[in-house]
């Protein structure tokens, strides 16, 4: 099979939500390769997964290949791993990101390590799809623990910010020979529609995307926080401040070259994410930039993430970076002062 690999798919296609784009990726992958199978809670018809990303697949490809499971995260992950050892390319859906903790042993001790521990004999080409909740779910359905999995050698971690990237990244994950964790944000799944390329158009893993070029400060983000960064950049442009916005797309592998090149050019960098700031992905990125660019940055790298608290139910308590906060922080960085 030949896949188109595109850094930024330009082809116009159907206008889809992120949920629809993920569904299109799964349908494309299952059609291309009979070894692609899906496992997860409620994924068969008529539900098609609680986030609808598996909609229609069991009807089209059969209950043998699209298997609704019990509420058994360890069995889902273990079954995916075992099937991959047997030559399949399973996609396992773990409904909420928080529930990956229930099967972290399978993910971190087995999926990530079996290739290494067997001296390369037993690759684990699985894709684990999971969702970060938003809105009124409370502390056990809204965590952003992507840094946990970035910390496990052997796992690849991706988080799309838009429908076209979601499709291209998921296709790359499914056909990648390493275990991949695909994390989508529920706030994006049924959000803005976007033209999504038809067919097998993939986005390479480990390649960030400069989604808005700029010259005075680099803001690095991913997933649901890319759009607020773009909005802040647009507002700052009216003040004459030029912001470069980088969408990581892949957290592991991390596109170190793009980040270092951008920050070296602008001289300032900020990282914005929904994960807790303390030990979050921003810590690694800030360390990287400071190790590589010490003395060449005009300000310390700034991190904007969630506070060190469980996610509160009351949404009046503001925990996630907003466009206004990002704008203020970036302006302060460029103007060489801090407002906090």
């Amino acid at each position: 099979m030949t896949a188109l690999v595109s850094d930024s798919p330009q082809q116009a296609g159907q206008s889809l939500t992120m949920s629809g784009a993920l569904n299109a990726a799964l349908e494309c992958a299952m059609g291309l390769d009979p070894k692609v199978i899906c496992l997860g809670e409620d994924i068969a018809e008529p539900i098609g997964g609680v986030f609808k990303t598996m909609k229609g697949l069991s009807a089209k490809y059969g209950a043998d290949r699209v298997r609704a499971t019990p509420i058994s995260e360890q069995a889902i992950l273990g079954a995916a791993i075992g099937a991959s050892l047997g030559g399949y390319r399973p996609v396992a859906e773990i409904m909420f990101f928080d529930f990956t903790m229930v099967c972290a042993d399978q993910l971190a001790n087995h999926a990530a390590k079996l290739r290494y521990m067997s001296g390369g004999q037993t690759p684990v080409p699985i894709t684990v799809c999971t969702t970060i909740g938003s809105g009124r779910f409370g502390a056990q359905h809204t965590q952003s623990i992507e840094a946990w999995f970035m910390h496990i050698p052997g796992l690849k971690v991706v988080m799309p910010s838009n429908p076209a990237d979601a499709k291209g990244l998921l296709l790359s994950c499914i056909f990648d020979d390493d275990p991949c964790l695909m994390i989508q944000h529920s706030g994006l799944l049924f959000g803005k529609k976007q033209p999504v390329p038809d067919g097998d158009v993939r986005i390479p893993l480990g390649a960030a995307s400069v989604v808005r070029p700029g010259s005075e400060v680099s803001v690095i983000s991913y997933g649901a926080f890319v759009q607020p960064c773009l909005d802040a950049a647009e507002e700052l442009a009216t003040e004459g401040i030029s912001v470069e916005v980088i969408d990581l797309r892949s957290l592991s592998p991390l596109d170190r070259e793009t980040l270092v090149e951008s920050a070296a050019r602008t001289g300032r960098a900020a990282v914005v994410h929904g994960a807790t700031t303390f030990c979050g992905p921003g810590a690694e990125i800030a360390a990287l930039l400071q190790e590589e660019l010490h003395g060449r940055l005009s300000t310390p790298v700034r991190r904007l993430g969630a506070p060190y608290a469980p996610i509160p139910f009351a949404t009046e308590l503001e925990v996630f970076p907003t466009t206004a906060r990002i704008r203020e922080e970036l302006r302060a960085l460029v103007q060489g002062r801090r407002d906090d």
Partner: protein
Amino acid sequence: MAISEHSGTVQDGVAPDGGTLRDMFRTMLVISLCDARARAEARSGALRAAFYPVHGLEAACAAIGSCLQPSDYLVSTYRNLGDAVAKGVPLRAIIAEAYGRIGGTSKGKGGPMHLADVSTGLMATTGVVGSGLPIAVGLGLANVLDGAGAVTAVTFGDGATSIGATHEAMNLASLWHLPVIFACQNNQWGEHTALRDYAAEPDLARRASAYAMPGEAVDGFSAVECRQAMRRAVERARAGAGPTLLEFRTYRLTPHSAVADASYVPPDELARALERDPTPTFRQSLLDGGLLSAAEVEQLEESARAEVEDAFQYALASPTPGDEELYRDVFADEHLVVGR
């Protein structure tokens, strides 16, 4: 034949033929000689590895291996020497892996807890108690999707019956009628705690009824009974009749690990078990039954000793992995290094 009074049915007792028994005896000889040698090397400090002896399991291991084809899968644990030998993994590679050498099954990067040999169907061995069962479910799923009649066996100790992954795996395997043989090697000890002290229901085979699958307890000291039970389970699996829980009731004839304290083991209980040491017991029954002559037994013992000696010589002569192996096998692309 001992059958759990609550589950299982007495089926045919067709005895294995002479050639099969002879092969099993030779396998048991290699396992027991190799196990004794590895224990001695670990105690002397020459083998610097956590080594978990299999003394007492020889009959169960040989029976499991004897009923499986190379195309059938096996998942084992950290107490895997007997399983690996019986599945046909080259002894040289097993011992070299224990010493962390490049000639090992995993190029010295797995260690004795993490053998794998895809060519003989040993797909994974885990150091996490109970984690192999969900992986075996996935291999069983691959067997079904392949449609070629292969089956998957997974071994685990009695201790693994207390962890949640075991429950999830048994439920899913039975729900999906997968060709999985859950082979519990009950040595009566979960680390340093007796089965009767940690299990509310120490009749482990009985648990099968909770998953609507056959459960059978067999005398784990008897090579013939072990083989008959395993053969029935494999036949059921191959015929599409789903999984079986087999409980091989035996006894741990050594400490938990080669160097662990075992002063808590009741001496009379251990003495009674040692009287039934599977390999000498089987040897005597083969002699008594006239299946092997004293000269044939001696010849088999001599060839087993030579094979074990050769494996240790090979292991010690094998180099340790070079620096180039450190990052290799983390990912499929050996040049992809995410972090240093």
